[in-house]
């Protein structure tokens, strides 16, 4: 359990960020003012589910089901903690920070 990521948090993208499939990169990317982050497969799958509606617990369940696996919770929480730190995502009306 990552102390920084409450299980009932409902992550959504920071408003400066846009998530999309980029054909030229053959990858999901995050676009933001004057920059771009190319995402690996798992980051893309997690961010795709950050819609502000799903809780972290629901995201974990959904990803484990989609990929027919278990034990993803730790990795997902660690990613979300990093993403929150960078301002890519935020949750539960917390103050949106600059990245």
């Amino acid at each position, binding site marked *: 359990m990552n102390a920084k990521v409450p299980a009932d948090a409902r992550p959504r993208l920071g408003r400066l960020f846009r998530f999309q499939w980029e054909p*030229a990169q053959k990858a999901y990317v995050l*676009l933001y003012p*004057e920059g771009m982050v190319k995402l690996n497969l798992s980051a893309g799958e997690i961010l795709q589910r950050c819609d502000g509606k799903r809780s972290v617990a629901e995201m974990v369940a959904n990803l484990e089901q989609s990929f027919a696996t278990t034990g993803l919770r730790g990795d997902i929480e660690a990613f979300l903690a990093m993403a929150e730190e960078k*301002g890519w995502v935020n949750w539960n009306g917390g103050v949106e920070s*600059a990245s």
Partner: protein
Amino acid sequence: MTSPRPPHPLWLLAEVTYRCPLHCSFCYNPVDFAAAGPELTTEEWLGVIRQARAMGAAQFGISGGEPMLRDDIELLVGEARQLGFYTNLITSGVGLTEPRLAALKVAGLDHIQLSFQDATREANDLITNTRTFELKQEVTRLTKEYDYPTVINCVLHAANIDHVDRIIEMAVELGAEYLELANTQYHGWGFLNRHTLMPSAEQLRRAEAVTDKWRERLGKTMKIFFVAPDYQESRPKKCMNGWGEVFLSVTPDGLALPCHTARMLPGFEFPDVRQHDLASIWYDSDLFNRFRGTAWLPEPCRSCNEKEKDHGGCRCQAFMLTGNAGATDPVCARSPQHGLIDNALELAAKVRSGQLSQPIVFRDSKTSRQLARAF
């Protein structure tokens, strides 16, 4: 060694016009902008946008001059956004009225960067040679209303760098999320005025200390970027993150450039987007290939262990200072011509102390027509 095929561009910067209501003495636009040809039409810009996106560019910037002087910005943004570009508008705010902002929002504009010149009416109006201070504050409030994060850019120079504390305070009052405090790039009009614009090492040190204090206080609520002036660094900056590797700029009159100031360089035929397609310009033109990678580097760069880091620095700066665009950027302490930088710093100190007087040259079309030289 350079790779067989260069990467595709990530950035398209559309400098849609050289016209500008402001007259900033630090502007990087070419000093002979008044001699530029007719501006691209809306259709021509749409063609450029489509080609760049097809090549893989993902960031689209609109700047100028003041882009809002054109009435088709909403159209260009709409097309770019619909093609998947992240769209950035770089504006002084002059002309960004509420109806236009509303239309830009509908068109899908992602981001607005507002330029500020100083924190007081007097200083703002002096450096821009206009009365625009209140207008900028009003535009900031308006962009917030339309749910845009407030991203402010303020160019620093000798006359405003001592106001950094007040500038940051103003940004906080305006609710800015990002503040970029960028020292003047000495290009174009900024080069003409560089001895007046250059801060002292002491001014710079104080401004950085003030900035650091604010950073501590503000934490994550506002991010502050501080860009030191090139002349006061001992290592050059990697020109455009690699010449012809990331960035593609198109001038108001349709010249494709690897950086927004490259049209000052002599000995090039600048490719015109009205005559060539963007992909052949990017991959095949002499302009985009001349300084690509590191194979072309002269000594001392060629045998330098930092060459991959900086690619020998800024080509325009090398040309402006040494007359040779292919020279090592004299900003580098290892450049045999680094003395040119010391001379410039000494001259600037004399201007600051009043030993030497240098009139400020404001950016306007009349002066531009009078200035025959390319920089």
